């Protein structure tokens, strides 16, 4: 698919009703995907998505759009591989060009221990369905000739893992495709509608209070990014979430020849080229939690320094734009999906710095949970209850952002 075959998106903006079967708080990718899959897979369309600003204006429109499945534990590899495959067919399914482009992600190792990690990663990926191989420096150079294998003399590349199916997609278009697909089937999306409280009856959530009046609901699902702790607190629920800013930036346009996505275990950055030819870079989260969207020079300097160490050609480029999103970090850097101890209140959160790639799978699985009332097997390990059970997921290293 491409831009020449495209028609304008059909958005419809009806007035809010007094009551819905399902109310989804948060009109980012995760909320819109849940609505989309409720409508397409389960025929549930008496659904409202409430967004306090505009759809895709939070982290769904601020991330670096990397879709990959090279995680470190079986549950995560299976989940993210499923999501990656849903992305591969999303254009055909929605009839919308999301600019999905398969690029492959190279994850560099610079030491003996880093090499062992990447070998283990490739092995566990293959065992659970993701296509990841271990590459030697010479093979890396074939995939990405721009890399300085000496790492500026300080961080020599001794090998790396290569998740061949990794891809990028245009984040706004993903949000719009899902929103349109849901709306076409009768789902309501209400922008500029802030949730200010939850309606409760005992231990059950029965609806939401918004700045446009109360809306009752059979099930309320939080797909909030950034401020999920505040929403959960309205239901008397405490979450293991710390909200940290994550910054990213793009350079001016470079000839569109840089094909893969490149990341590094030690240098902690990830870079890819956008469809416009900009080099898009991100790194780790800010060390202290904050809800502030301000970008800073320290991040720019530090990330640029590390990126140019491995990719010297970046030195000739200029920084065009820099921005910030606020990320819900969970203690084990894994998402939290499913039911909560409050009846009628489901959450999909803890999407920290890895949420974009999971949009279709999270939406699909949460939709199944809402439709059937049963937690799907695929997301059961990601339940909120794992913290009380001291059963954390040992996969912090796969995030690449700390």
């Amino acid at each position: 698919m491409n831009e020449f075959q495209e028609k304008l998106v059909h958005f419809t903006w009806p007035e809010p009703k007094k009551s819905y079967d399902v109310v989804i708080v948060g009109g980012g990718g995760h909320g819109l995907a849940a609505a989309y899959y409720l409508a397409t897979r389960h025929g549930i369309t008496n659904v409202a998505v409430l967004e306090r600003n505009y759809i895709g204006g939070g982290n769904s429109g601020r991330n670096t759009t990397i879709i990959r499945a090279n995680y470190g534990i079986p549950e995560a590899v299976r989940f993210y591989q499923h999501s990656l495959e849903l992305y591969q067919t999303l254009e055909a399914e929605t009839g919308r060009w999301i600019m999905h482009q398969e690029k492959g992600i190279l994850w560099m190792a610079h030491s003996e221990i880093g090499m062992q990690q990447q070998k283990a990663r490739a092995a566990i990926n293959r065992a659970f369905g993701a296509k990841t191989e271990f590459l030697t420096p010479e093979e890396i150079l074939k995939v990405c000739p721009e890399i300085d294998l000496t790492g500026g003399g300080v961080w020599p590349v001794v090998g790396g893992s290569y998740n061949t199916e990794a891809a990028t997609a245009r984040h706004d278009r993903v949000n719009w495709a899902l929103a349109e697909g849901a709306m076409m089937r009768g789902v309501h999306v209400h922008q500029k509608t802030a949730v200010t409280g939850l309606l409760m009856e005992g231990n059950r959530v029965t609806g939401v209070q918004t700045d446009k009046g109360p809306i009752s609901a059979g099930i309320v699902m939080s797909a909030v990014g950034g401020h999920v702790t505040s929403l959960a607190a309205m239901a008397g629920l405490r979450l293991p979430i710390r909200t940290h800013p994550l910054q990213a930036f793009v350079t001016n346009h470079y000839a569109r020849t840089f094909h893969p996505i490149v990341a590094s275990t030690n240098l902690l950055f990830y870079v890819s080229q956008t469809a416009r030819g900009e080099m898009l870079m991100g790194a780790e989260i800010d060390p202290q939690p904050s809800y502030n969207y301000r970008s800073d020079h320290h991040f720019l300097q530090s990330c640029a320094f590390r990126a140019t160490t491995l990719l010297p050609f970046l030195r000739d480029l200029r920084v065009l734009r820099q921005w910030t999103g606020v990320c819900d970090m969970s203690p084990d850097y894994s998402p939290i999906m499913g039911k909560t101890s409050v009846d009628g209140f489901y959450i999909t959160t803890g999407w920290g710095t890895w949420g974009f790639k999971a949009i279709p799978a999270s939406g699909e699985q949460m939709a199944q949970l809402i439709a059937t009332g049963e937690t799907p097997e695929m997301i059961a390990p990601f339940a909120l209850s794992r913290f009380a059970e001291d059963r954390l997921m040992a996969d912090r290293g796969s995030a690449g952002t700390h």
Partner: protein
Amino acid sequence: MILLNCPNCGQRNSLEFRYGGEYNPRPAKPLETSDAQWADYIYMRTNKSGVQKEWWYHRAGCGLWFLAERDTRSNEVMQTYLWEPAAKEVGD
């Protein structure tokens, strides 16, 4: 950039410091603390959008651990001070 006023060294760039987490007192009576309460203490956070009381460590300075009150929406630091065991906190 966040400016922090170290009680020893005065106002410095936050890059000199290490953030130590939101103020989260340890359960005072371990033997009487249930598993659920321990899990809450270890994992759950208030994660406040507003003025938060939090720990900082002057890593590249005097090595002091101290408390700060910072607005997490604006990153403005209201005040910094040394921790003192308040009478009401013992057995809290």
